[in-house]
């Protein structure tokens, strides 16, 4: 059991390091709280953001926690891959630059597997190859293929420009 856990742990750690550096230019890695007491102790997600000191992921800012969590889940997905992925607003707490870097990474990963991502961020929409806009009309959702000139209209809820 210990062997199974450590094998998975090390694979996830390996992917996490690459993904986090890709997203932030910093470094991240997993650490066992106590290698002799694996199952009664925890796992630390250590993160060192660019030009800062290393900190456990619970000690960083809200947006930095989001970046760490995203890196973690993407690492898990790299170890246990699927053919398609669905993400619902995973970028909610990211600033402009972090959401740009995330969108770049998703576009890269979409070469090998389909990605369907819900987002409110223009930076993410800009990097998608196909965008749908959804809006409400009399309690019913309407779905339209997106045109860049509708960009502000759809996310701001003003639907009169739709076609």
């Amino acid at each position: 059991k210990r062997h199974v856990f450590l094998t998975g742990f090390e694979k996830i750690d390996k992917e996490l390091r690459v993904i986090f550096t890709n997203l932030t230019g910093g470094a991240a890695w997993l650490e066992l709280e106590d290698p002799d007491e694996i199952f009664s102790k925890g796992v630390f997600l250590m993160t060192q953001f660019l030009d800062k000191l290393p900190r456990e992921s619970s000690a960083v800012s809200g947006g930095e926690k989001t970046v760490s969590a995203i890196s973690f889940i993407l690492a898990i997905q790299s170890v246990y891959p699927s053919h398609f992925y669905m993400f619902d607003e995973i970028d909610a707490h990211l600033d402009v630059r972090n959401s740009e870097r995330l969108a770049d990474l998703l576009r890269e990963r979409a070469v090998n597997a389909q990605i369907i991502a819900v987002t409110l961020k223009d930076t993410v929409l800009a990097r998608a190859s196909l965008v749908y806009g959804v809006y409400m009309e009399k309690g019913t959702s309407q779905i339209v293929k997106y045109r860049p000139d509708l960009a502000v209209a759809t996310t701001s809820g003003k639907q009169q420009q739709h076609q």
Partner: protein
Amino acid sequence: VFIRKVEARGFKSLGDKTVVVKFEPSFNAITGPNGSGKSNIMDSILFCLGQNSPKKLRVDRLTSLIYDGGPSVKRSQSIRVSVTLDNTKRQIPLDSDTVTVTRELRQTGENIYLLNGKRVTKNVMNETLSIALISPEGLNFVPQGIITRLSELVPDEKRGLIEEIV
């Protein structure tokens, strides 16, 4: 296996007329105002692929998924969602380039499952999909709010999560 298209009728806010959404194999994005129906589209896919937990579909019971109309519109009688998956690599054990998974839910709570238009039992549906490693419980689905919850896990919970996955 990727999603080629989703067709939904009577599912949550998607209304009583069949809605068709086609996807590309690459990077697709869905946007729109709060409450417009983006997460409902995700829910319809999960529902079709076998999700039976009302909590995970954000309702109190499955029949609440049925479009309940608006202030001036009638409630739907039933739900019908079809997800058409690409199967050119035959990862799903059926001899067709696409596989269409269909699920109907009536107000009685009765579920009907179809594979390529042919009626099957819930077990056959789940087993067929799981051979292609497709499941609504998969790590490839990241619903709204999960990242926030992940970011708040303490070290013991992180270990527990890795244990579960491994």
